[in-house]
């Protein structure tokens, strides 16, 4: 993994990330992930959410969330079921656009540019902000073609075999599958399928990776592997993960957002609201909001 990082930064100085050239023009965003990880610039903000609300058919699902996501960090969103954490996550790469009844209000700035601005093309957004889903969703193709699909449609330059190998190594899957790259991805175990989906995602070299409860369908060993992977991956990518597993958030994340369900007076409608957002350390040891403390200590939720 260490050499890979080195390799990337070499490549960046020379190639300068030409694969996103068209994208930058389209939405005037500089992903600017070409700085050394760990430097002061790593505290740069990737996302700035300002009063983001999402409603389905006019019923609010999550209300007025304001938070920043920082570069090179793992940011976790925790909270009980129905608190809108997945909905919030899907705002970040405009996957909510696929739900016709969903309406997003407020501002979601990505490197200072509003993701919901009038000139922004959601397809370009998703090239830069990848996503890993709750249930592994490999394509019904060979392992190789699963990885190669993204680079091919984005017409990325370079040797496809190398791109595939690099992505599989990045997802710690290469040694397990290098001898059966042409076999169907559906023959893999659930944990391998999920790591294949992560490999597929990093193959297109995104800036941010969103993970929607990536381990909820996996056994503890596979979960451990993916958590280790995330700690490796944050050197290159900013990661936002939604999880219902508080220990997971504590293990992998640098910052944690805690969302809670709110009811209206009639108790007919419910939506999520951000209760507290801080460094993970603080959220789990010394939260400033008593509701956070109740939740992380297991009293409620």
């Amino acid at each position, binding site marked *: 993994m260490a050499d890979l990082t080195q390799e990337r930064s070499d490549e960046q100085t020379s190639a300068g990330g030409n694969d996103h050239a068209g994208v930058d023009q389209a939405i005037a965003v500089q992903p600017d992930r070409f700085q050394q990880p760990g430097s002061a610039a790593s505290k740069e903000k990737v996302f700035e959410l300002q009063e983001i609300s999402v409603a389905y058919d006019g019923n609010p699902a999550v209300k007025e969330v304001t938070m920043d996501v920082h570069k090179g960090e793992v940011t976790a969103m925790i909270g009980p079921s129905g608190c809108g954490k997945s909905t919030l996550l899907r705002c970040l*790469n405009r*996957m909510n656009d*696929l739900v*016709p009844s969903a309406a997003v209000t407020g501002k979601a700035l990505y490197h200072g540019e509003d993701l919901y601005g009038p000139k922004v093309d959601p*397809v*370009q957004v*998703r*090239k*830069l902000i*990848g*996503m890993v*889903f709750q*249930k592994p*969703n*490999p*394509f*019904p193709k060979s392992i190789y073609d699963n990885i190669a*699909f*993204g680079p091919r*449609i*984005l017409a990325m330059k370079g040797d496809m075999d190398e791109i595939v190998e690099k992505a599989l190594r990045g997802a710690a899957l290469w040694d397990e599958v290098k001898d059966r790259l042409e076999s169907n991805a559906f023959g893999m175990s659930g944990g391998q399928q999920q790591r294949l*989906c992560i490999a*597929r*995602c990093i193959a*297109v070299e995104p800036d941010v990776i969103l993970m929607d409860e990536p381990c909820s369908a996996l056994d503890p060993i596979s979960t451990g592997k993916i958590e280790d992977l995330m700690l490796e991956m944050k050197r290159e990518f900013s990661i936002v993960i939604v999880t219902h597993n508080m220990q997971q958030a504590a293990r992998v994340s640098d910052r944690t957002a805690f969302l809670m369900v709110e009811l209206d007076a009639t108790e007919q409608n419910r939506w999520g609201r951000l209760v507290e957002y801080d460094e993970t350390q603080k959220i789990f040891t010394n939260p400033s909001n008593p509701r956070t403390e109740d939740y992380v200590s297991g009293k409620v939720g």
Partner: protein
Amino acid sequence: MSDERDRFEPRTARADIAVAGARGVTAAVLSDQPRKDVIRNSMFASVLFFAIAIALAGLAWLIADSLIEGSSRLNSDLFTNGTSSLPLTAGLKSAIIGTLWIMFFVVLFIVPIGIGAALFLEEYASKESRLARAVEVNIQNLAGVPSIIYGLLGLAFIARGPLGLGFVVLTASITLALLVLPIVILVAREALRSVPPSIREGSLALGATQWQTIRRQVLPAAIPGIATGVILALSRAIGETAPLLPLGAATFLTSDPSGPFSDFTAMPLVIFNWVKQPQEEFQALAAAGIIVLILMLVLMNSVAIYLRNRFEQRW
């Protein structure tokens, strides 16, 4: 409780009887199906068996009858002789060639149009839009319209009228294509719908456009289902007689159909014509023709079933 158990005496004769009685009751409850139910069950099963027996018996009778009557004419002459007014020199050659030409152009029409319509309805049209819903209801209705209506439509608008193609192969192809398009669209939509949304999401999340997602992920996964639908539609079209009747299908051709704009005939039409003839020999010929047509249908449907079982994606 423990006190009571302690007071239990060793087994007496009375206790044995009681135990035997209790066991008997339990056994009766568990095993003895009431006589009523047994009769009702077997009656229901036999009614169902009768239903399937009638369906199969009808088919078996038709095949057996045709085999007996047509066996004398079921030889290579049947495939090398063209149309003729003399029963001894008449054969299916022109009809088979005509049918193949017609089907060739039917495929050319229904594959792109059927898949295109299904893709629009399934992937692009908003499920709530009035237009999409109106189209959907109409397609389902069209699938049930009597086929002779399509024949009249073909006569008025394709053979004559705006298209004015005349009574040629292409006219028959377009008419039959219109007839079976609803089937293709319905089956193709079903195939597209069976591709789980997670595949579309996975592709879109990589930065693929909607068209790339459909072209590279959804459509390939749905192709086996769509192919099955196309073959089933063709096997419907191949046996259709009524819509071709108003289109001036020839029962006598001096030369075999040779392209989209030549005079045409088709297998079911030739068979229908033979059945109408008074001569005994033509009846045998018709029976032999029926056998050939049924064999073609069975073959096509087998291919469809094979495709479905072999290539259909399990999710």
